[in-house]
């Protein structure tokens, strides 16, 4: 086992896939000469040259469109958004072109494209730079939505995303880039749509993904001291969704809490809560609860930002209230 950062794991996945398949290229702002705004593509320009590691002007809608067009004609693009905040400039190409191309052409144009980049909230970046958008993209059929939380998952899931013949929204967590974890040296992939039980427990299931996994794990440790046993289901991908893993966990613990970084209204956690009450209702001892970012644009002031973000203590408190 090697110890890699989340960033290095992503880099390794891209490098290995690009070495194998010359049709794969990486495109985005500052991915080449600058070595990536968050250094995920460090060293890749040297390895693959300017034809395959391509810097673009600031024109998200344009280069997302380039990606989709090139995928229609056989290439396998990896399109990096410097952060997902700026993907909104390109959301038309992502949703109106990429997500529907195969469907509306009657299956003529599979779309082997990965849109990836930094996402998530925090860091005092303010309202326009600190947002979690996985719920937005998961809303739209035709795409896969992947949100890894550990270096090991990041590597295996990115490889699967690159090999997938569908458009994949691969949202990396900006605050996790530097975190370290064990990554097997042997090559491996992780199928999209397979959740992972990150912690076994008996009293309550926390269902989560991406950086919010950290809040759940921390909360579980706090609660353990109080004699509460938490099971943590890391969804890893929201589309396809591993519903079975959720139900099995809930059947065991009879209580569920969804923890996410995004806003509460029409957020993905609402979908999970609906599915649980629909398909595991008989096993529930308490309504499904949620911990989310507060329902406000992200404020800049340190104390207000702290107040608006989900964290371990809020998770622990929510659990205590459910179990009371």
């Amino acid at each position, binding site marked *: 086992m090697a110890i890699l950062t989340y960033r290095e794991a992503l880099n390794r996945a891209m490098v290995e896939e690009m070495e194998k398949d010359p049709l794969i290229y990486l495109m985005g*702002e*500052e991915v080449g*000469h*600058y070595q990536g*705004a968050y250094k995920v593509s460090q060293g890749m320009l040297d390895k693959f040259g300017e034809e395959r590691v391509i*810097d*673009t*002007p*600031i*024109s*998200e*809608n*344009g280069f997302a469109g380039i990606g989709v067009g090139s995928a229609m004609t056989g290439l396998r693009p990896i399109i990096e958004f410097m952060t997902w*905040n*700026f993907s*909104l*400039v390109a959301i038309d190409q992502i949703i109106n072109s990429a997500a529907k191309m195969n469907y509306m052409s009657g299956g003529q144009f599979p779309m082997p494209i990965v849109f990836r980049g930094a996402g998530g909230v925090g*860091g*005092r*970046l*303010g*309202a*326009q*730079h600190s947002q979690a958008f996985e719920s937005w993209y998961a809303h739209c059929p035709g795409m896969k939505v992947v949100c890894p939380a550990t270096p090991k998952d990041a590597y295996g899931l990115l490889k699967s995303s690159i090999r997938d013949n569908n458009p994949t929204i691969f949202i990396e967590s900006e605050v996790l880039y530097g975190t370290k974890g064990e990554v097997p040296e042997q090559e491996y992939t992780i199928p999209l749509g397979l959740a992972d039980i990150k912690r076994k427990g008996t009293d309550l299931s926390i269902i989560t993904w991406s950086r919010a996994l950290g809040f759940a794990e921390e909360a579980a440790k706090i609660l353990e001291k109080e004699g509460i046993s938490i099971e943590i289901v890391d969804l890893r991908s929201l589309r396809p969704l591993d519903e079975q893993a959720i139900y099995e966990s809930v059947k065991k613990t009879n209580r569920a809490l969804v923890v996410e970084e995004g806003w509460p209204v029409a957020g993905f956690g609402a979908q999970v809560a609906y599915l649980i009450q629909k398909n595991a209702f008989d096993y529930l001892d308490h309504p499904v609860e949620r911990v989310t970012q*507060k*329902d*406000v*644009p992200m*404020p*800049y*002031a*340190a*104390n*207000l930002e702290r*107040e*608006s973000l989900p964290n371990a203590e809020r998770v622990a408190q929510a659990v205590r209230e459910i179990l009371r």
Partner: protein
Amino acid sequence: MVLIRKFEEAAAKAYSIGKIGGFLHLYIGQEAVGVGSIAALEPKDYIVSTYRDHGHALARGLKPKPLMAELFGKATGISKGNGGSMHFFDKNAHFMGGHGIVGGHISLAAGIAFSSKYKKEDSVTICFFGEGAANIGSFHEGLNLAAIWKLPVVFICENNHYAMGTPEYRALAVKDVSVRAYAYDMARDHIEGDEVRKVHDHVKVAVDRARRGEGPTLIEISTYRFRGHSMSDPAKYRTKEELDSYKKKDPLFRARTELISAGILEKDLDALDLSIQEEVDEAYQFADESPEPPLSQLYQSVYAEDK
């Protein structure tokens, strides 16, 4: 210009010890552009800026105290601590924001100018952006709409030759952004931005044209940022020689030399520098001592009705 320089040097210091969070994009080196341009405006006119907005705000006459307090995320900040470095707003001063999405604000500026025309107020809007922003859709759409409706707006491209780490020659098919004006049948201009008076004189021509109802202008002003793109950028993509060559053209130094040759005494300029430094120090202290926003502010202003 000196106020901007000293304000930002103080901000950089506060950032390095964690009193300011998030991104901090400094304007140091570009001061003559903001100061010269905004001096061509009247109080009824509007300014729209980017995330590199400290210089524009100070040039507009916004006070250092609420600006520094905003950087510190305090209740006394110009946006009550909700905005931070990238989002200065002052409605009374017609300072229509620092905006964080590259180029998105260019069509907002056209909208503000549209409003002036609609309401028959003869206000002019100046919109600042970098050469990197000239590649985004909102630029093209905003300029085209401004041109077909002859909106009173002056688009000022502050070309500091880099968009983050991307030099202009790798991002612009035609290096001179100002010639894009031809595509929209718009007036254009292109100048160097190291002489504040020259900047003023050229921008004034465009502002007057807009005020007469003769439509928008696209001006490219060539300049340079002495620091990295933001505080977290070591700016390894450019050479020390290049930086040094621009530092020789420091707009502050030029202005000082010009003033001295016009007969202003050096000791008067030094005294002025000192009093500006005091003003900045006071702003720093004010920001540091100001209270954080009350937690009740979290849900305020999400909707217009939220008080």
